[in-house]
C-alpha cells in the first residue's frame, strides 16, 4: 500500500530543489479582475456575491424558525503581504513560481539557520493596524506556535501570541441597499504578524504527498474580528472591506483565488435573548465572498433546524468545509479539546520596538481609506449606490477623484465612469489603469459637453475612440470637425433645406402626423453630421414646420 508515503517529500539538500511538483500557471491577474466579484469594477454592481441568497430551500417554516435565533459570527482573516522578499529570509516572495525554487536554508528550516525580520512586514502591520483603528503595541514580540506538519519546516510557525502588534480596533462599512442597506461597525480584536507555511500536494491516488516550500515564510497579517456579525451578508461585507482596505493600503493584492486573502469563519447560534454563546463551529475553504455568505446562511439554517428539532447536542465544536458543488457545509474534523500549541517567545528574534515618531510617520502616509472615501462621496451628494461603486476599487476611486479634481461635475463624472466606461472595461476585460482615456481627457470631455462645445451624442462617440485609441478631446474635435453648430442661422439654413426637400412629409405633418417631427430632426442632424445643437435644431424646426406660408 502506501509505504512510500511522504518519501518524495525528501528534498535534495544540495541543489535545494525538490522533485518537480505541480507546475502552476502564473495567474497574472490584475487586482481588479480577480479575487472577488465585488472587487471588479462593474460586476460588483451587477452581481455582488453577497447578494446571492442562500439557495437551501428556505421554506416559510424555516423562515419562522430562523426568526427565533441569532447567529454570532467572528472571522479570522489571513492577508498575505506583497513584500518583495519573505518575512524572515531574502527569498523572493512571488506567487506561482516553479515549486521549491524560492527557498533557502532559512525557510527550509535547515539546522543552524536563523530568521531575520523583514522590516517591511512591521511597516505593513502598522499600516493595517492604523487603518483598522487599532491601538499599536510599541513593544511587541514574536512567539513560536508549535505543531508538526510536513509543510511546516521548522516544526513551529513564527507568530505573535500574547502581544500582537495591533489590537482593539474597528471597521466601518455600508451594507449595499439590496441587502437592506445601513451602516455597520464591527470590532477588530487584534492584528498580528506571522509566517505562512508551505503547501502540501497530495497525489490523486493518495499514496504519496509532496511539499512545495515556496510559500513557507511568506509574511501574513492575521486579522481577528470580534464576534459582531449576524448574517452571511454582514460577514461577506466585512471580508470584502478587509480586502478593500488591504488593497487601498497596498499591503496585499488580496486575491482570494491565489490564497492572498483567506477567511476562516467561526459561527454559533443562540435563541434570541440568550446571553451565552452557542457551540462554535469553524468553516474553512471559503474562497469567494459569495461562498462565504452562502456557507454561513446554510450553517445558520442547519444549526437552527437542529435546535428546533431538539437536537442541539448534535452541534459540536468542529471544523466544517464548504462544499461548493453540493452547496452545503460538511464535517472536516472534530476537535478533541483545544490544540496545545505550546507558545513561547521566539528567542531568535529581538522584540519589535516601534517609536512614536515611526508610527506617526506611517499614519501621515496613509492614503484616504474606503470609509473616509465613502463618507466624502456621500457628502458630495452622490447616492449610496454610486458611493459604494466608486469607493469599492481603489483604482476606480483614484480615477474618479482625479477627474473631479480637474473640475468635472461630480454626478456627470460618476455617470460616465459607472456607465459607458465600466461597460467598456468589462467587455474588454481591462482594468481602469489599463485604459487609454486619461483623467484629464475625461474631465475635458465632460466640460465640452457641459459648455455645449459638443453634443452628448458626439461625446459618447469621442469617448469610445479615446478609450480605444487614446488622444485628446480637443484634438479629436478639431480633427473631425465636431464642434457643435450653435449658430441659429446655420441651423435654420439646414432646416429650410430639409423641409423643402421633403414636401410630402411636410404635408403629412401638417395634416396631423406630428410624429414626423422626429424624421425631420433626424434628417437635419444627418445633414449637420450630428453637430447641430439638438435644442436649437428642434426649436427652429418646429417654427418652420408650423409656419403658415
Amino acid at each position, binding site marked *: 500500500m502506501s509505504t512510500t508515503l511522504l518519501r518524495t517529500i525528501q528534498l535534495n539538500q544540495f541543489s535545494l530543489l525538490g522533485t518537480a511538483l505541480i507546475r502552476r500557471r502564473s495567474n497574472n491577474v490584475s487586482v481588479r479582475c480577480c479575487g472577488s466579484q465585488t472587487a471588479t469594477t462593474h460586476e460588483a454592481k451587477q452581481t455582488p456575491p453577497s447578494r446571492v441568497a442562500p439557495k437551501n430551500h428556505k421554506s416559510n417554516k424555516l423562515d419562522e424558525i430562523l426568526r427565533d435565533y441569532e447567529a454570532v459570527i467572528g472571522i479570522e482573516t489571513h492577508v498575505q503581504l506583497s513584500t518583495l522578499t519573505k518575512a524572515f529570509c531574502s527569498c523572493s516572495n512571488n506567487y506561482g513560481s516553479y515549486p521549491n525554487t524560492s527557498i533557502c536554508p532559512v525557510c527550509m528550516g535547515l539546522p543552524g539557520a536563523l530568521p531575520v525580520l523583514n522590516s517591511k512586514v512591521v511597516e505593513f502591520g502598522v499600516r493595517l493596524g492604523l487603518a483598522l483603528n487599532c491601538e499599536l503595541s510599541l513593544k511587541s514580540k514574536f512567539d513560536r506556535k508549535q505543531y508538526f506538519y510536513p509543510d511546516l519546516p521548522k516544526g*513551529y510557525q513564527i507568530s505573535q501570541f500574547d502581544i500582537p502588534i495591533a489590537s482593539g480596533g474597528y471597521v466601518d462599512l455600508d451594507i449595499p441597499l439590496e441587502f437592506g442597506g445601513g451602516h455597520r461597525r464591527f470590532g477588530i480584536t487584534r492584528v498580528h504578524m506571522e509566517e505562512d507555511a508551505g503547501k502540501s500536494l497530495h497525489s490523486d491516488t493518495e499514496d504519496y504527498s509532496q511539499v512545495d516550500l515556496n510559500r513557507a515564510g511568506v509574511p501574513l497579517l492575521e486579522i481577528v474580528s470580534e464576534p459582531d456579525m449576524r448574517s452571511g451578508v454582514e460577514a461577506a461585507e466585512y471580508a470584502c472591506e478587509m480586502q478593500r482596505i488591504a488593497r487601498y493600503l497596498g499591503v496585499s493584492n488580496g486575491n482570494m483565488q491565489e490564497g492572498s486573502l483567506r477567511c476562516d469563519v467561526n459561527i454559533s447560534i443562540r435563541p434570541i435573548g440568550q446571553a451565552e454563546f452557542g457551540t462554535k463551529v469553524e468553516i474553512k475553504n471559503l474562497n469567494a465572498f459569495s461562498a462565504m455568505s452562502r456557507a454561513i446562511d446554510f450553517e445558520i439554517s442547519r444549526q437552527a433546524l437542529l435546535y428546533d428539532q431538539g437536537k442541539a447536542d448534535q452541534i459540536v465544536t468542529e471544523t466544517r468545509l464548504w462544499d461548493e458543488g453540493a452547496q452545503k457545509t460538511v464535517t472536516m474534523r472534530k476537535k478533541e479539546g483545544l490544540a496545545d500549541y505550546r507558545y513561547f517567545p521566539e528567542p531568535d528574534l529581538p522584540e519589535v520596538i516601534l517609536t512614536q515618531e515611526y508610527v506617526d510617520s506611517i499614519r501621515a502616509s496613509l492614503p484616504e481609506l474606503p470609509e473616509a472615501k465613502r463618507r466624502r462621496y456621500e457628502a458630495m451628494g452622490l447616492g449610496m449606490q454610486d458611493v459604494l461603486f466608486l469607493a469599492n476599487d481603489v483604482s476606480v476611486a483614484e480615477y474618479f477623484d482625479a477627474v473631479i479634481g480637474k473640475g468635472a461635475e461630480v454626478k456627470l463624472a460618476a455617470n460616465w465612469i459607472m456607465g459607458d466606461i465600466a461597460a467598456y472595461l468589462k467587455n474588454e476585460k481591462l482594468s481602469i489603469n489599463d485604459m487609454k482615456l486619461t483623467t484629464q481627457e475625461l474631465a475635458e470631455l465632460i466640460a465640452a459637453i457641459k459648455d455645449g462645445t459638443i453634443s452628448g451624442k458626439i461625446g459618447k462617440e469621442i469617448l469610445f475612440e479615446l478609450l480605444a485609441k487614446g488622444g485628446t478631446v480637443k484634438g479629436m474635435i478639431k480633427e473631425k470637425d465636431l464642434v457643435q453648430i450653435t449658430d441659429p442661422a446655420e441651423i435654420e439654413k439646414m432646416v429650410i433645406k430639409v423641409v423643402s426637400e421633403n414636401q410630402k412629409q411636410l404635408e403629412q405633418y401638417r395634416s396631423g402626423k406630428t410624429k414626423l417631427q422626429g424624421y425631420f430632426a433626424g434628417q437635419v442632424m444627418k445633414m449637420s453630421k450630428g453637430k447641430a445643437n439638438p435644442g436649437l435644431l428642434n426649436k427652429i424646426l418646429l417654427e418652420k414646420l408650423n409656419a403658415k406660408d
Partner: protein
Amino acid sequence: MLSTLQPPRSLSLLPLRRFQCSKHIVSAASSSSTAPVTSPPQSQILTTRRSLLSGETTAVEIAKSYLSRIRLTEPQLKCFLHVSENVLKDAQEVDQRIAKGEELGPLAGVLIGVKDNICTEGMPSTAASRILEHYRPPFDATAIKKIKELGGIVVGKTNMDEFGMGSTTEASAFQVTANPWDLTRVPGGSSGGSAAAVAARQCMVSLGSDTGGSVRQPASFCGVVGLKPTYGRVSRFGLMAYASSLDVIGCFGSTVADAGMLLHAISGYDRFDSTSSKQDVPEFQSQFLSVDHFESKPLKGVKVGIIRETLEDGVDSGVRSATQEAASHLEALGCMLTEVSLPSFSLGLPAYYVIASSESSSNLSRYDGVRYGNQVMAEELNKLYECSRGEGFGEEVKMRILMGTYALSAGYYDAYYKRAQQVRTLIQKDFKAALEQNDILISPAAPSAAYKIGEKKDDPLAMYAGDIMTVNVNLAGLPAVVLPCGLVEGGPSGLPVGLQMIGAAFDEEKLLKVGHIFEQTLKGSSFIPPLLANVA
C-alpha cells in the same frame, strides 16, 4: 584525599619533534613536584605565524605533524567524528601564498577543530546525532566563514554530546571520547571532543559551543583554556540550536592568547543573526604581552570577587583549595580580592534546565525526517514522525525534549517556563550588582575534576549538578574564561582543575588580560597531558 599538585611547565609542543621531548618532561613531572620552572606556555597561533613567516617550516609540514599525531592518538581518544580530507590541500594554499609573498591572514596555517554542531559546508555536520548522520550542510556557519577568510584550516569535526545535551560527551550517538589525562575518564562536555583535541595537540585551537558550560567544564576537565564570550558577541548562524537564548560559540586553546585570538576572528555583528551584537570588537591581541614586559604587580587595582556560593558543600576539597590558591596568586599579582555573594546562585540550575529543555524541545522539532536527515518510512504521517525521531534521537535528547514539552504545555507554562525566566532576571540582577563592585568574579569551573567514564551515566541529576558553576553565566549572558590553575590527584599524573573568571557583558578584553597574566605567571604548573608522552 585530593591535593593540588604542581608539576613543572613544559614546552609548547608545536611540531612533532618537539612534542617527542615531552616524554621526559611529563615523566619528570609525575616523579617530582619541585622540578625546575620552565618558560610560560606559548601561543600556538603566534608561534605558527612566526615560523611560517621566517620560513623555519611550512604549513604543510606543520599540518602533517598534527595529522600524524591525530593518527597516533585518535584510536584511544576518539575526539573526531570526521577528519577533513583537505587539510594538506588547504596548507599547501597557505604555503603558496607565502611563496608568492601575498599577505597572510592572522589564522594562516592554524589548525582548527570544529564542534560537530557547527555547520561546515560539504563536511559532515551531525551534532553527534543519528538523526543527522551523513548530513552535509550547504553552507558554512558565519564563524567558519570568518575563520576560512583569515586563513584558518578546519581539521575536522569534533565529538560532543548529542546536540550539546550532556556534560561528558558520552551522549554522542557515535563514540565516547576519552580524557587525554586519563583514558578511563570523561573529557567533560558537551564540547568534550574539542577540549580533548586541543589538550592532546591534535589541533592548535578549536571551536565549541556553550549553552550551560559546555566549553568551560570540558576545558577544566582537559586542562585547556575555554572561552565563553558574551551572548551576542559571536554569530550563532550555522550553530545547530540547542537553547537559542543561551547558546554561544566558544573557543578552546592551550593558552589564553590562542583562545582570545580565535575569539577575535569569529566575533562581530552578523546580519544573519539578529541576536548578534553591534558592539565593537576590541583588538584583544594587545593584551597578550610577553611575560618579560610585565610590571611587578601587573594586575594592581583589579578588583576580584570570589563567589562564596561556589565554594560551599558539594565542591571537592581539591578543587576548593586549587581555587583558593589561584585567588592567592591573583592577590600576589596585585588584585584586590573580596568575597561576594550571589543570593540567587542555587536557583540557576533548575531554571537553566527548564529554559534549556523548553527551547530545545522547540528547536529540535525541525528534525522530523521530512526534508533531510534520517527518515524511517512508515505507512502513516504520525508514524513517520514517531519512528524517525524515536530512532534518530538518543535517550538524553528524548528526555530533554519531553521535559521541555511538558514545561511549555498549557497549564504548566506559568509554573515552569515563566517562573524560570523570572529566576533568570534575578540572576542577571545579582551578577550586575556583583560586577559593579568588582572587575571580575572567580569560581571553580566545576565542582570536581574529570570523573570516570560511565560514573554518572545512569544518574542524570548528579551529572546536571556538575553544571552548577557554569549555568548562571549563560542565564546572565556574560563572558567567562576557564583556565587551568592546578592539578588534583587522579589518573597517571594528576587531573587538571580549571578556574572560572566571569566578566561584565562585552568586557572579554579584561578577562583575557587577567587570564593571560595569571597563566603566564603561574609558577610551576604545566598542563600537558601524560598521553602525549605515552604515544610518543
